[in-house]
């Protein structure tokens, strides 16, 4: 969805930032948003929330917190029910899966071809 929405809106984005916080995502406030996610889910850092507010404003902080919360929910639902990633999607996104090393997360059974 990141790649798709960026392409559709002619927005430059560096996808490697998803798996490597040292990489600049190229989006306005992108580094701060990644830092905020890491602060919420890994190492708490009050400065991370302040950085988002300074860069994008208080409303953006609340939206970012809400999106994190939503994907906590959706990740649990997907992982706990074993929602399959179909082969068409795997093929369409094969380059992204390879570039970002996402196969290491794949505990879902690959569809029979």
């Amino acid at each position, binding site marked *: 969805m990141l790649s798709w929405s960026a392409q559709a809106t002619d927005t430059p984005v560096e996808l490697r930032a998803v798996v490597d916080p040292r990489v600049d995502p190229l989006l306005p406030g992108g580094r701060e*948003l990644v830092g905020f996610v890491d602060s919420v889910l890994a190492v708490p850092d009050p400065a991370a929330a302040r950085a988002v507010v300074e860069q994008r404003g208080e409303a953006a*902080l609340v939206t*970012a*917190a809400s999106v994190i919360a939503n*994907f*906590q929910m*959706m990740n649990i639902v997907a992982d706990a029910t074993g929602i399959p990633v179909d082969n068409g999607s795997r093929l369409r996104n094969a380059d992204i899966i390879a570039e970002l090393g996402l196969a290491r997360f794949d505990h879902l059974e690959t569809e029979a071809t």
Partner: protein
Amino acid sequence: MIAEARSARGGLDPTGGLDAVTTRAVRTVAARPAAIRPDWVSQLLDDGLDHPRYVELVAVVSRAVAIDTLLEALALEPEPLPDPLGGEPSGDIDRRARPGKAWVPMVGGGSITQALSLVPPENAELETLHGPLYLTFEEMSDPAIHKDGLTRPQMELVAARTSARNSCFY
């Protein structure tokens, strides 16, 4: 179950408020969902937890984790839990749900939006919370949508980083 989920996410010992199988299920779903495998789900079923109860458990725990995460992210206190209501479970399940490629029966072809469809009220609650937290299922088809300070690509960066942090392939 929400108290048990909070205990697991906080690294605390089990509360003792649930039976052993439900305790095991809640704690893993809440704190280590990426570790779940089909044989783990099968073992829960062998140990007495049926599919509708497992789906309901996943639904309740996932929503509770979402709300708790939102409050944690905004440095707010967790919501106090209400007293449990009495009465019997509704038993409201969708008889059209069938086993498929996912690990639980569902209606339709294994879409995330139908993941909890075996228990319709839980699937409805998922969609009810999904809208205000992120986007409605209908809004998701708009790549240019803005929401309160963030563009769609900025929202998706947050979503993708969250999923990467959670080691969620889907």
